[in-house]
């Protein structure tokens, strides 16, 4: 039999000014199951809490209802007080008679009656509460960071420096990402590689970091604190342990005409190659798709030359099983190629390049050693047109969003060009200049005012070749849409930043949600920007949305901080407000029919299948199973389940049902 205590708070005069608290207390005392009822000036004060504690002990209460302010305010206070008096904290409920009653209604019987109705409703609820224990989940203190660009590097270093193991998984043969391709960075114009490579080396040498390159995630299961991940380490055909990185193989490889990915196709590489001189690890890999031996069965030049016998043509992909407590996604972005733009020549004009190609042209370590020469004939261009928003902010191209980095890097490109080609003229077509950031606006102004970049506000309708020139036709909207035509030597498209190829399938493997553009989705756009909906999986950098370097690094450190917070405990403690699938004795076992529709409804991928087997291990029935580590307690599955086989702790069917009845029947 329930023994409920009801405590009506006056909240000074906040409640008692419009609600007759003594009356509510008196009415509550008359409710079946209520053995104690009182009112007091400040229930949340120490003496108020003591009243509750004393009543729990004295009247042997099995449930407590505090009618006071919003539970969003003081539920933890009163639950703690109950716990201190030996009552399970989840046997305490609050009726909100302040925000939802005394403050919003005039003084009178109706207001007092409503306060009582709300109290009665919670009394009926609490009669159906039962003790709950918070959920403890052990935490494996290894983090997996996916993606070795600047965000992945930063996150790995932060976590590793926090004293935890990190497994860094990179798809390419080297870490470094796009930042390693950049020439100089805005708004400081410091050399990108100069600031990045020390970090890359630090990763390679860090005792807490294990680096897997040429590797991808094969599959993932488990949940926060307890992920099981399979990593596919692709065959490099080079034994990393034996290889000293002397580079002899790469110089002698007979296949030398493969467009270099790192150089954005502006230079070639060999079939056995190191992507760039500062690569980490600085050991070559064989590109099997282009290797003469793999194509024809003959060659093996590298093997013959290798002084340590590191070349291994038989090497196979390796599947590595790792366990981790957290995952940081830092897979970055890609930019659209020039062939995406029919109006700009579908990529057929060699001198129409994208921003990343310009970075390589401007880079001291690039194919031209930093001299700006156009790809077609190597001439120094006299007029260069930069087109911002190539694809971005263009719903017709399916990319309605702003790529965010282009305004800044286009200004930087104009500047770098002007610095290198003093007599040249940079033109910039733009829609708006978005230079919000520390020293950003100053930077773009410098490009215009000091370096003489000619900014034209308008879009370029098309580009065509005429007499060795690229005719760029556009309009200047600031001059009422006056047509503009520029005979350029080179055109640089600030093509849209898009999500990486394969991010959708990775998101599905990791059960992370993604937006319509296949960027990974954060758990909350404001308050959980580095978390995903899957607890224990975090986001760093431009895999979430286009980001510049400082933002990527900040997000990476944010994600790392989340991981370190998680790892600071041996166990996770979670609110036990989770859904459960019922279980009952044979022959029914559970009323769950295994229709699995709850699996698709769960926003957290917290529901899986479970086989019920007999003693011989034969499957009798397959039902849904909710992982309390993943369940966040939204209850969507509970309301959906047709057979009422799922219930939610804290908001059970019985509880909410009794609440509705109690609210309406006095």
């Amino acid at each position, binding site marked *: 039999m329930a023994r409920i205590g009801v405590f009506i708070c006056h909240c000074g005069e906040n409640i008692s000014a419009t609600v007759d608290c003594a009356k509510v207390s008196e009415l509550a005392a*008359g*409710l*079946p199951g209520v053995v104690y009822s009182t009112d007091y000036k400040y229930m949340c004060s120490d003496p108020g809490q003591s009243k509750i504690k004393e009543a729990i002990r004295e009247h042997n209460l099995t449930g407590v209802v505090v009618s006071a302010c919003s539970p969003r305010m003081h539920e933890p206070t009163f639950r703690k007080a109950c716990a201190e008096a030996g009552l399970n904290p989840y046997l305490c409920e609050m009726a909100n008679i302040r925000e939802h009653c005394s403050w919003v209604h005039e003084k009178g019987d109706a207001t007092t009656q409503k306060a009582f109705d709300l109290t009665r409703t919670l009394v009926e609820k609490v009669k159906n509460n039962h003790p709950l224990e918070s959920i403890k989940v052990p935490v494996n203190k290894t983090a997996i960071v996916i993606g070795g660009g600047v965000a992945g590097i930063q996150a790995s270093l932060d976590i590793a420096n926090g004293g935890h193991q990190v497994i860094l998984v990179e798809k390419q043969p080297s870490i470094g990402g796009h930042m390693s391709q950049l020439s100089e960075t805005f708004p400081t114009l410091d050399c990108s590689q100069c600031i990045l490579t020390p970090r890359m080396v630090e990763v390679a040498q860090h005792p807490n970091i294990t680096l897997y390159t040429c590797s991808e995630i094969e599959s993932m299961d488990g949940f926060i604190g307890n992920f099981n991940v399979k990593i596919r380490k692709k065959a490099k055909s080079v034994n990393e342990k034996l290889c000293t990185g002397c580079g002899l193989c790469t110089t002698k490889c007979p296949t030398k005409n493969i467009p270099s990915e790192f150089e954005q196709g502006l230079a070639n590489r060999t079939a056995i190659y190191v992507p760039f001189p500062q690569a980490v690890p600085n050991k070559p890999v064989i590109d099997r798709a282009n290797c003469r031996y793999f194509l024809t069965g003959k060659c093996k030049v590298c093997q013959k030359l290798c002084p340590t016998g590191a070349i291994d043509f038989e090497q196979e992909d390796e599947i590595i099983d790792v366990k981790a407590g957290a995952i940081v996604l830092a897979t970055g972005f890609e930019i659209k190629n020039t062939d995406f733009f029919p109006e700009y020549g579908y990529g057929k004009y060699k001198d129409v390049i994208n921003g990343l190609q310009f970075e390589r042209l401007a880079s001291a370590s690039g194919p031209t050693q930093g001299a700006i020469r156009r790809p077609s004939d190597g001439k120094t261009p006299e007029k260069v047109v930069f087109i911002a928003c190539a694809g971005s902010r263009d719903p017709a191209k399916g990319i309605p969003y702003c790529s965010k980095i282009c305004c800044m890097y286009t200004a930087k490109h104009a500047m770098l060009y002007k610095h290198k080609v003093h007599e040249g003229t940079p033109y910039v077509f733009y829609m708006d200049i978005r230079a919000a950031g520390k020293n950003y606006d100053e930077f773009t102004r410098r490009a215009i005012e000091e370096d003489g970049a000619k900014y034209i506000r308008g879009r370029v309708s098309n580009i065509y070749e005429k007499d060795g020139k690229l005719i760029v036709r556009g309009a200047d909207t600031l001059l009422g849409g006056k047509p503009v035509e520029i005979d350029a030597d080179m055109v640089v498209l600030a093509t849209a930043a898009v999500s990486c190829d394969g991010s959708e399938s990775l998101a599905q493997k990791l059960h992370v949600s993604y937006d319509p553009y296949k960027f990974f989705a954060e758990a909350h756009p404001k308050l959980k920007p580095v978390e995903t909906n899957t607890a224990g999986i975090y986001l760093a950098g431009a895999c979430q949305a286009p980001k510049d370097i400082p933002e990527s690094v900040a997000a990476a450190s944010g994600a790392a901080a989340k991981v370190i917070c998680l790892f600071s405990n041996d166990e996770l403690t979670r609110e036990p407000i989770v859904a459960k699938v019922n279980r*009952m*004795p*044979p*022959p*029914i076992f559970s009323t769950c029919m295994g229709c699995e529709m709850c699996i698709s409804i769960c926003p957290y991928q917290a529901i899986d299948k479970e086989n019920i087997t007999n003693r011989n291990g034969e499957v009798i029935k397959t039902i849904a199973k909710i992982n309390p580590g993943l369940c966040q307690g939204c209850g969507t599955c509970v309301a959906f389940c047709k057979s009422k086989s799922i219930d939610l702790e804290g908001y059970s069917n019985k509880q909410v049902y009794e609440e509705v*009845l*109690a609210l*309406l*029947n*006095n």
Partner: protein
Amino acid sequence: MSKIKKLSKESFPLLIKKISETQHVYGPVSQGKRISYQRISSADELASDFIIPDMSAKSFVFPKIEKLFSYTKNKDGVEVQDINLDNIPHRVVVGIRPCDAAGMESLKAIFSWDPSDPIFETRLKRTTFIGLACNQADDYCFCTSLGGSPGDTKGSDILLTKTDTGDYIAEILTSKGEKIVTLAPDLFQDVEGDLQKEKFLANVPKRFDNSDLQNKINAAFNTDVFDEYAMRCMGCSACAFVCPICACFDIQDETKGSKGQRVRLWDSCGAKLFTLHTSGHNPRETQGARWRQRLMHKFSYMPERLEVRGCVGCGRCSRRCPVDMNIAESLNQLIIDN
């Protein structure tokens, strides 16, 4: 006490009118695709040209929801309010079929079995049945196979038989029937000689020979004849609920705030929940066992204990069965097999 009178076709509506002045009158009413016993205020509302109403007349004495008592929960416990039998209304049912009326005898046997049920008794006592003999029948009708007939007087207080002129032969069978006559004695004309009621009755051929039915049914208990039924019967309760005799019930509490009432509701041995134990064990595990129970109860257990059968051969269960579980066919098969 049976008295034969004549009720002309013009008098019949007047009689209904007369009765409705003092009592609620019910009769078969057509409602879309459905014919059911409804409250009427004039004879015009009565359906014509049909075999049998979709639902039997049992709800007049054994309604689908019967309040047994009500209660109020308060701080100190529960206060019980007994049902006031005085509130049970006096009613007249016009046009009840002889099979439905005959079913009342079986129901009475069930509810009067130790201990007798006062609510049922009162309802029965206060309901007057003016039967209407069947002048048409269909293939599902098999009253004659179980000793009934389209002109059976059992259970009726007055039985009307419509003649070819549209006038009625009225058999006044009980004192309740007499009371109806006294309401409008002028409408009932005296008759002379034999009116040859049988001439106006439907022809319901015998479907099987019911001699020794009980033993034959008992003999079938452990045979595999029920296997096919087990597969086909889908386990709804339609047969039981349309049956004029099925009287299994469920007791439930309906609550609303601090108020509650205990109600008796129709239930069915064909439903799997009927015998399901809390443990999950079900002594009547399969639908075959449940169908067997239905037959056994009607044709073996009831005759044994109550000396009445649980079936009058109205054929409703078979007409209404979504999967054509035909009771007459089953009986016939059991009789032939055993």
